């Protein structure tokens, strides 16, 4: 077992390598490109046995990925942001094919305005497509999650595509020590892909992904895919335990930190959650009972696990690194998860932070805890709060002055 410094992108490439993916349909996009470049360099040096084909768009890339999986080989691919959206039609389609493959998404904010830095609106746009989602917080998790993702995708109870998400820059270009498991151990954990009757062979005529007439069959097929996705909750826990036995690292549905005795919890996704964890240490040091919950599996949504960990808490600060009219995605999803509980529910307070890679400072986590406490005392939650300072607005004003934006809009009839 080697422990070495790897970027999140490097860890993703290593995950693919250890998983012995047969096929990589590719299309470059920042900040993902390093993944396919790394794999290409291994192929060029004959270090791995994998076929890589560069397609002309993410739409074609995902089509080729799904088609190859439907022919019965192990497929890996990677994209980001605009690319994920460009391929969106095929995400739904390939999930409907029930073709298992692993797609890495390196989160990056969506245009417009176009940016290279991360937030989660890209990956969350794919939340209903039928593919499962694993969200990573460290480079180690990126590598490990790809192995878990193949087990999950290829499990007969699931057989769906799985997206492994990591944050651009904060993980993609950041090096951390990563334990690279032994190939033999990975082979034990992840056997070769047995595609079963998912194939195209001369001896086995197969018509895949055919049309249906009428809502009955359509409902049946879609709901079967839904049930398969829901199975992933149990399967993930199962393979997580197997992973721990094999490699010693734990992967539960939720990553929880100081939750048991906390009265206030932070809920976050992805690598920014480690910043929250650091803040929790400081808050604990100052005597505040604050904890952190980070869902690893976001699709399917680990509703029951969240209900359990949130039970009895006074307030929950949901910090969404995404924006949707009405509040953050995680906030609305969590509110739904808690709604049908008969016991007292914690007060949910929504914060929108980290859009387009904006940093969230330790001071802000302190303030988030304080504001959540004030809301608990008042008994009502304020409107979603954007983490945005007066100094930031002053900076924007300077830019607007250069851009020639008029400060006073013309009067309009109401």
């Amino acid at each position: 077992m080697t422990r070495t410094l790897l970027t999140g992108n490097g860890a993703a490439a290593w995950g693919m390598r250890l998983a012995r993916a047969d096929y990589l349909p590719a299309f470059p996009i920042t900040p993902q490109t390093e993944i396919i470049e790394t794999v290409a360099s291994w192929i060029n040096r004959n270090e791995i046995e994998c076929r890589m084909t560069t397609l002309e768009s993410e739409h074609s890339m995902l089509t080729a990925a799904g088609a190859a999986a439907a022919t019965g080989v192990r497929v890996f691919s990677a994209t980001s942001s605009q690319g994920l959206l460009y391929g969106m039609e095929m995400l739904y389609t390939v999930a409907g094919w029930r073709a298992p493959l692993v797609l890495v998404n390196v989160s990056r904010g969506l245009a417009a305005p176009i940016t290279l830095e991360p937030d989660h609106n890209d990956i969350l746009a794919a939340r209903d497509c039928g593919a499962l989602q694993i969200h990573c917080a460290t480079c180690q998790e990126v590598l490990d999650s790809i192995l878990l993702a193949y087990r999950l995708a290829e499990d007969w109870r699931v057989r769906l595509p799985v997206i492994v998400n990591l944050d651009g820059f904060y993980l993609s270009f950041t090096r951390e020590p990563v334990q690279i498991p032994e190939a033999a151990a990975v082979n034990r954990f992840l056997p070769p892909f047995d595609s079963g009757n998912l194939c195209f062979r001369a001896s086995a005529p197969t018509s895949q992904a055919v049309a249906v007439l009428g809502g009955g069959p359509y409902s049946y097929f879609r709901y079967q895919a839904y049930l398969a996705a829901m199975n992933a909750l149990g399967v993930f826990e199962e393979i997580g335990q197997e992973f721990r036995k094999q490699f010693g690292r734990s992967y539960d549905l939720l990553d929880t930190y100081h939750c048991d005795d906390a009265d206030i919890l932070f809920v976050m996704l992805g690598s920014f959650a480690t910043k929250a964890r650091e803040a929790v240490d400081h808050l604990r040091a100052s005597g505040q009972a604050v904890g952190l919950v980070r869902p690893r599996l976001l699709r399917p949504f680990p509703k029951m696990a969240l209900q359990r960990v949130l039970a009895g808490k006074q307030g929950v600060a949901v910090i969404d690194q995404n924006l949707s009219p009405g509040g953050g995605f995680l906030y609305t999803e969590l509110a739904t998860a808690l709604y049908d509980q008969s016991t007292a529910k914690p007060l949910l307070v929504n914060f929108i932070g980290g859009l387009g890679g904006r940093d969230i400072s330790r001071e802000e986590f302190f303030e988030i805890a304080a504001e959540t406490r004030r809301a608990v005392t008042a008994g009502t939650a304020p409107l979603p709060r954007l983490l945005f300072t007066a100094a930031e607005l002053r900076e924007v004003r300077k830019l607007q002055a250069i851009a020639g934006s008029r400060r006073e809009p013309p009067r309009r009839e109401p």
Partner: protein
Amino acid sequence: MPKHHRSNALFRIRFHGRGGQGVKTASRILGQAFFLAGYEVQDAPRYGAERRGATIFAYVRASHDSIYERGIIRRPDLVVVADETLVEIPAAGVLQGVTKTTVVLIHSKLTAEDWIKRYTPLEKVVILHPVKTRRQELHLDSAACAGAAACLAGVITRDHLQRAIEEEFVGQKGSLVQANLTQALDAYNQMALDSGLVIAGSGDQGTTPASPDWIDLPFEAADISAPTIHAALTSTQVTTGLWRTLRPVVDENICRRCGLCSSYCPEGVISLDDQGIPVIDYVHCKGCLVCVVECPAHAIHAHPEPVPEGEQT
């Protein structure tokens, strides 16, 4: 070995330089050296689209414990400045979060006293004397900066440093590895008296954090709030001349007034005056030196940019 090092504290080290200077490499050498010395490490560059000459920074965190901080280092223990001309550029943010306790390592021909006199927050300034000036070897600055920083941290041995460079340059030409090793180890030795000067966690002493000063962002109609520029040529407000490390200068006595430099200038910043002599707009010239190479009369020469004269506001 360390004088004041607390075993579980977090080193926060920030590198500043220009694209092409190897700031990312420097952070990786230092990160790898910490890792080989038994530390948990996080290293990362920060840039948008990479551009030669533009300012970039990188950072290294190292600790015996797991590291949960991410992103920008706001309270550095050590700031490494590979290019001294960056200090006076506010956008480069070299002095951001720097306090009296922060060690600032500057690759400079000036003395520590000069710097302390010019910039008020500076107190612990260490000078790394530049060895190479040839532009082709600019990237070697990175090895020197990493070597010096390694010594200042006080927990990295020469052996760690050497292995880190070998690791980071694996697969590269032997002569390149050797050149980097020489630079790094020379710089390491130069710092011998200040070994262990950087104290992990010293930059992060504030225990009562200030309120973040959030505001409720007011609604503004799309004619203001859409990402639209209602003007032409606003890019000229960007002083790309600050990217320049070498300045092309026209020798009027040799110039044949052919205007070729103006035609070839990728930035379009060379115009001809009424005598036909090229006039270079130094506010915007990035110092690519295409004009120096293309001038048929060899009338344009590259000169090092003058060292900043003092604090300019």
